[in-house]
């Protein structure tokens, strides 16, 4: 368990829900006061402002010598090495598996490109864009091949949206609550500004024939990963993305081009795109039959369950962190998202779901994108359970884990969006618990399937 302190804020009145949840607007008002205090020089606070000093002696080392020179491509501060992805490869085939975004170490809504989650089935291909083309064929009037330079000449559009692996948070199906930190449990989701060619433009140029209903999309990796996608989605809001957060795609995120299907499970956002075949039926690929299908309690399985449903989690404080300042005021913050549109509200509870209050949502709240929420909380020093519950603009509400399991059983593997509980003990140590007392803390994890 790591020992990350959580910033403590000032104490204040203004409770709006049980066990110390305060009015979300209080944070903004208090923030002005405490922000200003925090920026006073340390000497002034200690009453030493007027004492005589040798010039320069109060300077920290980095103010007494010139800084380093320019760099062609910036990297994070050397003190932030822990803000890194958590790779979990297959134990033999090391290029197959997933790596998690450290959501609990990030703020705001945009995931830095080097921290975007990864899911590869046979490694990251080293694609030379000069030798790569996109082929569109099948039920079209003209089969067309596009080079990368050609695609870069198209009018581009940007969409800010999340991409979430269908298997994200799947440890939630386990009987035993995962002990992982928040991002290494829920971080197969990331949020970026993607820029590229709207797929509808390219499909129109090829000329969609009557009878075309599906598009088989294939990547240029060593897995030749392919899936079937409803044509309507590609004509709606899909992008052939060439840029991620302003720069060309990273190899692990699909360089030189990938599909971005806002709100739909990661596997259909095909990376390293090379072929789109319009068909009248799905191909029934391995990754839409044997995998990425949701086994139900009656033994049937849902297939083509594309939409990632409404979900949220508190990223700070979260499992593995410590409320180092002791009892007092803390900021509770996290992320919410829905594949069906905008997040309308996020409610927070500090008393295990007995009472709830609305968190502040950071503007702008975009459709099918991360929404950042924040709310102040006065920790009394007693054990507590923190929860977040998101509602999207279609009225869908994030379910409690027990509701999800009652509906879907425990072997769905994919599409887990249950409410997350973080426990706080009397020492301020954060952990992960389920509502059911019988399920707590002991035993071995029991995920049904591996990342193959």
């Amino acid at each position, binding site marked *: 368990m790591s020992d990350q302190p959580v910033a403590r804020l000032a104490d204040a009145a203004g409770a709006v829900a049980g066990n110390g949840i305060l009015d979300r607007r209080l944070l903004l008002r208090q923030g002005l006061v405490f922000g200003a205090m925090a920026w006073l020089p340390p000497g002034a606070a200690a009453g030493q402002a007027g004492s005589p000093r040798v010039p320069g002696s109060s300077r920290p080392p980095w103010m007494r010598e010139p800084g380093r020179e320019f760099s062609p491509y910036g990297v994070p501060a050397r003190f932030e090495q822990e803000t890194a992805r958590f790779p979990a490869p297959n134990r033999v085939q090391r290029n197959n598996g997933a790596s998690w975004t450290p959501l609990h170490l990030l703020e705001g809504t945009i995931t830095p490109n080097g921290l975007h989650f990864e899911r590869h089935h046979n490694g990251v291909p080293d694609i030379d864009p000069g030798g790569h083309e996109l*082929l569109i064929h099948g039920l079209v009037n003209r089969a067309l091949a596009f080079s990368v330079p050609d695609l870069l000449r198209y009018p581009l559009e940007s969409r800010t949206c999340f991409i979430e692996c269908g298997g994200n948070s799947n440890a939630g199906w386990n009987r035993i609550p995962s002990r992982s930190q928040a991002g290494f449990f829920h971080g197969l989701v990331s949020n970026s500004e993607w820029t590229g060619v709207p797929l509808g433009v390219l499909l129109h140029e090829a000329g969609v024939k009557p009878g075309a209903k599906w598009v088989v999309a294939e990547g240029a990796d060593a897995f030749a990963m392919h899936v079937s996608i409803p044509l309507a989605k590609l004509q709606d809001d899909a992008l052939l993305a060439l840029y991620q957060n302003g720069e060309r795609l990273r190899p692990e995120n699909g360089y030189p081009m990938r599909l971005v299907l806002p709100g739909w499970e990661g596997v259909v956002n095909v990376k390293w795109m090379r072929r789109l075949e319009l068909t009248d039926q799905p191909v029934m690929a391995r990754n839409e039959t044997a995998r990425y299908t949701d086994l139900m309690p009656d033994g049937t399985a849902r297939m083509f369950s594309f939409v990632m449903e409404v979900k949220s989690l508190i990223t700070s404080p979260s499992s593995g962190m410590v409320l180092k300042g002791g009892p007092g005021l803390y900021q509770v913050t996290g992320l919410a998202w829905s594949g069906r549109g905008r997040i309308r509200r996020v409610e927070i509870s500090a008393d295990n779901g007995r009472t709830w209050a609305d968190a502040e949502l950071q503007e702008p709240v975009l459709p099918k994108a991360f929404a950042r929420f924040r709310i102040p909380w006065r920790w009394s020093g007693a054990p507590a359970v923190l929860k977040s519950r998101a509602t999207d603009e279609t009225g869908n509400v994030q379910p409690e884990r027990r509701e999800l399991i009652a509906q879907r059983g425990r072997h769905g593997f994919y599409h887990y969006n249950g409410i997350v509980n973080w426990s706080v003990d009397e020492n301020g140590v954060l952990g992960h618990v389920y509502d059911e007392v019988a399920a707590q803390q002991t035993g071995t994890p029991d995920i049904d399937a591996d990342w193959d």
Partner: protein
Amino acid sequence: MMKLRRSRPALLILTLIGTSAIAGEAPEGPDLGQAAGARMIADWDTDIMPDGAGLPEGRGTARDGAALYRTHCISCHGEGGLGDSGDQLAGARMSLTGEWPEKTIGTFWPWATTLFDFIRRAKPPQSPGSLSNDEVYALTAYLLSLNGIVGADEEMNAEMLPRVKMPNRDGFIDAWAREKAATRR
């Protein structure tokens, strides 16, 4: 009144013209794509559809496939397809409604054609695309035979493979079709 009645069909026609003009108004692009020839498409398109469309010439039996399995697959998928670092492919003892559902080819995969498609495009992981069509048919036959779906000497080819009915063929619910139906309602 007469005037009004006469004007109605005219209005309707205008509306139809308007609608079709909007429907045809797809986003304009610079049209930079190059015509792709039949040769390129044939080279690139290795999809096998569930009805068998796309299956190449060639043949193989489980007996042929057993040796290939030992060479290419057993290190990850284990003896008899029981799984190791790779998926369990056969030998399920627990059904899909059991306490520990075992999603093998025999209990879970709905289409035999998917096996051929997947092995040919992705296996073996160290050298994908290196197996001949005969070898892929043989491995497909072997995995079907391990699951008791075809016999050891039953030849798999473009004609026979699509006729194999998988035990879990009817075990899937199309969530997308349901979603569209619910939206229409």
